[in-house]
């Protein structure tokens, strides 16, 4: 073990001073003396594309690794040979069955596969970026490792992971949004989220209403000036402490509604409340608060 490590250092270390080298763009530079060890980075790995004629299969072995698969995307799949005898095809079909069964070792793995499938589906429906999807998968893994799943549903944890990951990355989705897309019910989601929040110490603070604005605005077909005004209003509302105790999505809807009124946009309280999954009353109360606040500011 130590031998391999030493050879690695001598191979990748700086030839002048033996210091650590760092890849910077296409250059490989020694971090100690600044010697440029290499200017062109060559990928010695297998080739992505096939250049030779009539060679249909590229050498590259597969897609990059991802946390969104239970095996990090390193699984081997047995394909379907097209131009072989029927006997060979049947043999491959049997091999495939066995291989598929052997891929999942334990119940734990099976649950993970199921949850990751659900997380991937959810992220796709909600339009959450891939980095957050991977984060959600990691979150689920830690929940599983902390033995939180006992007595709670996998679907709930899948939904809660996505919700928490999105919230931690400041691109929050509302609970009703997540739950309407998820297989889990709202109760399952809450049970899972509470457990995760309590046991794992999620780095999550209060949601800023502005996080919801872009999505609500695009769903309400708001003009961009309305949206940017709503953003200012959300900022004001947070500074003035109007958000405390209120549903942030309701506040976001109220900000949009207020901005819409200022710009004479056709936007009803009901419509604003609908996209935020809150009652018009919530929107109205925040609107009144906001208006009072703005009036006092002018005075």
């Amino acid at each position, binding site marked *: 073990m130590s031998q391999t490590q030493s050879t690695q250092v001598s191979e990748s270390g700086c030839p002048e001073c033996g210091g650590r080298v760092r890849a910077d763009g296409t250059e490989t530079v020694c971090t100690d003396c600044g010697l440029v060890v290499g200017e062109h980075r060559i990928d010695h790995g297998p080739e992505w594309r096939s250049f030779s*004629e009539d060679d249909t299969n*590229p050498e590259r072995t597969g897609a990059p690794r991802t946390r969104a698969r239970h095996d990090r995307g390193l699984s081997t799949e047995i394909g379907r040979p097209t131009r072989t005898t029927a006997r060979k095809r049947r043999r491959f079909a049997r091999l495939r069955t066995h291989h598929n069964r052997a891929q999942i070792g334990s119940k734990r793995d099976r649950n993970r596969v199921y949850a990751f499938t659900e997380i991937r589906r959810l992220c796709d*429906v909600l*339009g959450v970026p891939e980095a957050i999807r991977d984060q959600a998968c990691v979150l689920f893994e830690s929940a599983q490792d902390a033995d939180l799943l006992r007595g709670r549903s996998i*679907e709930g944890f899948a939904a809660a992971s996505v919700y928490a990951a999105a919230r931690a990355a400041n691109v929050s989705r509302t609970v009703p949004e997540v739950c309407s897309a998820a297989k889990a019910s709202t109760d399952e989601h809450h049970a899972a989220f509470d457990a995760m929040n309590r046991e794992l110490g999620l780095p999550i603070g209060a949601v800023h209403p502005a*996080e919801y604005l*872009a999505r609500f605005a695009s769903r309400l077909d708001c003009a961009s000036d309305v949206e940017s005004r709503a953003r200012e209003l959300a900022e004001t509302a947070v500074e003035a402490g109007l958000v405390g105790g209120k549903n942030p999505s309701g506040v976001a809807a109220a900000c949009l509604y207020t901005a819409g009124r200022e710009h004479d946009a056709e936007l009803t309280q009901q419509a604003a409340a609908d996209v935020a999954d809150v009652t018009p009353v919530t929107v109205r109360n925040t609107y009144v608060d906001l208006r009072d606040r703005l009036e006092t500011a002018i005075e």
Partner: protein
Amino acid sequence: MNREDRRVVSREYFSDERLAEHHFRSFNNFLNRGMQDVVDEKETIETDIGDKEGQEPVYVELGDVRMVTPRVREADGSEELLYPQEARLRNITYSAPVFMEMSIVRGGEEEPETVVDSTETKVGRMPIMVGSEKCNMAGFSDEELIDIGEDPVDPGGYFIVNGSERVLMTSEDLAPNKILAEYDTKYGDEIQVAKTFSQRRGYRALVLCERNREGLLEVSFPSVSGSIDFVTLVRALGLESDEEIVHRVSDDPEIVKYMLENLEEASVQTEEEAIEELGKRVASGQGKNYQLKRANYVIDRYLLPHLHEEGVEEEDVRINKAYYLCRMAEACFELALGRRESDDKDHYANKRLKVSGDLMKDLFRTALNKLARDVKYQLERANMRNRELTVNTVVRSDVLTERLEHPIATGNWVGGRSGVSQLVDRTDYMGVLSHLRRLRSPLSRSQPHFEARDLHATQWGRICPSETPEGPNCGLVKNFAQAMELSQDVEDEQGLKRELASMGVEGIPGIEGVDRTTADD
């Protein structure tokens, strides 16, 4: 036509819309009916739910597909219209969401069928051809195009996947569903072969009818190893009597003589015997009942699938298959007697071009099958876990999206073809135009194929006689001529047949009011 008029026509052929017209027409056609056709072919997704006792079966019914124009979904969840230039700059895919109506139906065994859930759901994203009907720039004026950062003289006709422009190479295939007679050699002897690439709904089966050195006809088709006697097969299809078989092949005395030799050698006399014989071939060593079942299945599934048609009785289809085989036999004999020459594979009448829409249809079909398999799995899983079955929670739209985008991004098409999509050649403007109007023969470029590379007289007016690369691809990669017109397949096949029947064509299957037996006289 005088010179001025010719110039007008010529200029029209060089206008923006005409340069990539074949791509637009083909892709629009795919969007407007091709997609729905593929979904209608699929019709339902069956599940294994209900195989157990006391469980009601569940299946999914597929309805209308709908598509909007390309849009992008940001990380914050907002959705906006996407224009090609933005897709290029941000390295994203110029694709539009596809929606499909789906309903989950439960019951049918003991309880009546009830719809558990029915909604229109997003099933995936379809890459959209720049400049097609569903492109966001459709109908824009030059000024508007400049405003969104687009070149007004850019011909379009390509896709943008992960920011790179990909054009789907038109491929030149041998025409399917046509009898081609030619010579072949087997064990040193010259034999005559009639070939048909029978194609229906993406399934392609090669049927061969060969006259071996003893003068006997043998037919081979997928799922049957080796070959089977022509007479046996025709009898299995319901053409029983000697007289009828001979009569169906030809009235030519010499051919009749050949046919009689064949009939003498025949091992079976009736339809039942013939099907038994076929069963022994396709499922040897199995029980007799299974053999019969398998034989019938093979006939209906793998033999000349293009003769199947909606609304035509199974029995009629079989007899039509028999007639078709007789036509192939006739072609073999005529070739043997020197009554005709072998068919010219390089003749442009025997060629069909697969343009972007046809290629996308192939892709969509496999992608939809993959989606269906996933939906089936998700449904069974949800049912096993006693979850409520809802359309939205069983459809994973990334399945379809990935299956559509990946082949366009890499060029590795379904069916093992590679290099189907290529990066648009932006060396200069002419490079783009030439690239969009290029077509490729699927023949291997490492083999000589001299005849295929030669300029054929029928390419006149269709293929440019001078634009072809030097080197291994010479003559295999071609370019359209300036005034090339690409005709499309008929939208309404039934309508065409009715029209033909009204013009006096007799014996068209599935057309009422035409007595089929009169075709004999």
